């Protein structure tokens, strides 16, 4: 029996040439040390395969039409057998892919693996990074709940800031004047056909280049890359020290990727798919659009950067980032690769880390937004302990006039403006009046909104808060 299968395999291999094709890839020599460093790239590839498989499965259940997409999402999330877990795996898989593609890029930068002769490996990788981000964003829109459609509006607005072409780009994104059936079919096509096709092509190129140039050897301080001699040196190095990819190196990649997949399944099982918001309806406005976590840093950036430079920053920022990413291998393609000898490069990496993590943390809290769910501050929480009727009336005004959306008093209210729990000790009644009437900074001017007696009642309440 065994012989029978062996003969079938022998016949197939002879006619198809599987061995000839794959043997060199499987056996290709890799540097013997530091192989744990290299697991991020293969894990990103595993994630992409996971996304393709779960994405195809989801496409069996999803209806890419503006009228039905949301309902099919409800079906997937709440009714279909294993639907929720399928959607969760696709969601956490996307998150994992974004994290891993980021880690892979940072690792490549830290070990300067983009230097000669691997410049094109880096550049094809930058393309893959951009495609991955675009996939994440379009995937979020395909949920087609109110968050999805409003996120499309936000994306169109960002494109609108591009000089000269902004209007056309925004229109192209939405597929027309407004958001409707034409918008969803476009997002669907981008997410399911067009971008994945590019990803397949660029992964093929990226992998081909990995085999062609070989995996970069772990850097060592003082071992410089010289384009004139590197290829020869690398060949000798492999000849002397290399181990075959299979089976000596591959187990690490498999183990790491498996751990990631297990983590994703655990997350999917324990946390489930992210909740859908409300039905997609641009006439329903009581919604607070917020992006998935990997877009939250842009969300935070747009709230926090100086408003005056924003239009310019929205265009120049991403353009400059992409240009820098593309030219990195041309800025220095030779010399030192060790992170220990490239302090400025490492300083840059640390800055990027701090920048990204602080924006993520801020973005998830978004303290700059008015808190529409703020509860009225109860009498028990205001000063003094037994307030007179004016102070109580002032506290009611403080809530009903919307002050509390942004200002906090003793734990009640939003965080966009300063906490006013002890404002009476800080400012005199006159100073408070000036600020309330004239506004300033991020405070609207209430001069024409409040009448004189309401203003006085409010000041009485605030003065008592000390």
């Amino acid at each position, binding site marked *: 029996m065994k012989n029978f299968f062996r003969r079938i395999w022998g016949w197939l291999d002879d006619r198809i040439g599987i061995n000839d094709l794959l043997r060199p890839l499987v056996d290709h020599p890799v540097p013997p040390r530091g192989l744990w460093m290299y697991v991020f790239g293969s894990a990103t590839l595993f994630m992409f395969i996971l996304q393709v498989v779960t994405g195809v499965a989801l496409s069996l259940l999803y209806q890419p039409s503006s009228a039905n997409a949301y309902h099919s999402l409800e079906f997937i999330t709440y009714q279909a057998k294993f639907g929720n877990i399928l959607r969760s795996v696709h969601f956490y898989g996307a998150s994992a892919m974004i994290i891993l593609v980021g880690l892979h890029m940072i690792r490549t930068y830290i070990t300067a693996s983009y230097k000669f002769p691997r410049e094109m490996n880096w550049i094809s990788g930058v393309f893959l990074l951009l495609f991955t981000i675009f996939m994440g964003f379009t995937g979020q829109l395909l949920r087609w709940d109110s968050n999805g459609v*409003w996120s499309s509006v936000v994306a169109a*607005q960002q494109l609108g800031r591009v000089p000269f072409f902004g209007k056309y780009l925004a*229109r192209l994104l939405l597929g027309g*004047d407004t958001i409707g059936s034409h918008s969803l079919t476009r997002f669907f096509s981008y997410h399911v056909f067009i971008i994945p096709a590019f990803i397949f092509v660029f992964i093929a190129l990226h992998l081909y280049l990995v085999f062609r140039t070989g995996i970069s050897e772990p850097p060592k301080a003082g071992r410089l890359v010289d384009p004139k001699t590197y290829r020869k040196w690398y060949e000798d190095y492999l000849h002397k020290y290399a181990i075959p990819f299979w089976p000596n190196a591959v187990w690490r990649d498999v183990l790491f990727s498996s751990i990631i997949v297990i983590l994703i399944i655990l997350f999917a099982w324990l946390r489930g798919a992210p909740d859908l918001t409300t039905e997609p309806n641009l006439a329903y*406005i*009581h919604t607070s*659009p*917020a992006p998935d976590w990997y877009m939250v840093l842009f969300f935070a950036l747009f709230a926090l950067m100086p408003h005056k430079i924003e239009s310019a920053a929205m265009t120049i920022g991403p353009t400059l980032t992409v240009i820098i990413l593309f030219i990195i291998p041309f800025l220095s393609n030779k010399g030192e690769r060790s992170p220990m000898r490239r302090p400025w490069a490492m300083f840059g990496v640390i800055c990027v880390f701090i920048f990204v993590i602080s924006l993520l943390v801020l973005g998830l809290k978004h303290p700059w937004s*008015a808190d529409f769910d703020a509860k009225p501050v109860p009498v028990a929480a205001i000063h003094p302990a037994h307030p007179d009727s004016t102070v109580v009336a002032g506290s009611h005004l403080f809530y009903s006039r919307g002050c509390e959306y942004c200002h906090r008093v003793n734990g009640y209210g939003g965080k966009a403006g300063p906490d006013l729990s002890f404002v009476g000790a800080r400012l005199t009644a006159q100073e408070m009046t000036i600020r309330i009437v004239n506004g300033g900074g991020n405070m609207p001017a209430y001069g024409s909104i409040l009448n004189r007696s309401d203003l006085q009642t409010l000041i009485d309440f605030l003065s008592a808060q000390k």
Partner: protein
Amino acid sequence: MSKIDIYEDESKHQRSYDKDNPEEMTRKQFMTRVSLSIAAVSAAVMAVPCIAALVAPLLEENPSSWRTVGRIEDFPVGSTRLVDFENADAEPYSGMLTKSAAWLRHVDQDNFTAFAVNCTHLGCPVRWEENAQLFMCPCHGGVYYSDGTVAAGPPPRRLPEYKVRVRNREIQLLTAPLPITVV
């Protein structure tokens, strides 16, 4: 029995590719070029409808139409209320996404202002807070006064307006594309 040359056809054709025969080469080259050109032209023709599908939104006209959003008596002077209306480009299969909303403010007599609900910062839906007399955006802290001017936060422009008219005591609003802030 005479010996059969089993490679007769191949060798005949190969001779026609003989590099020592420049005249013959030119004819072959010409044929190659012609066939490549035919392929290129047919590919280009095929590409036209595909690219047209991609850029279709830029090729279409922008329709707009007047929509009735209510009667004058439904909107007391000084009030600001949310109205919705069907978009001009709504398709029967667009589901719930056929409508847009606007904040309709009755200024005085026959004077109405219809503000887009979209914040000029990044397009999030602003809410009218009646007691505070402010439009507030939930996304990045944009705030507008009742006349649509910016009160606070990042918005670079005042709230966009739709055209409004009154016909037979009916308030009508002219549909417009989703307002995009252009610099």
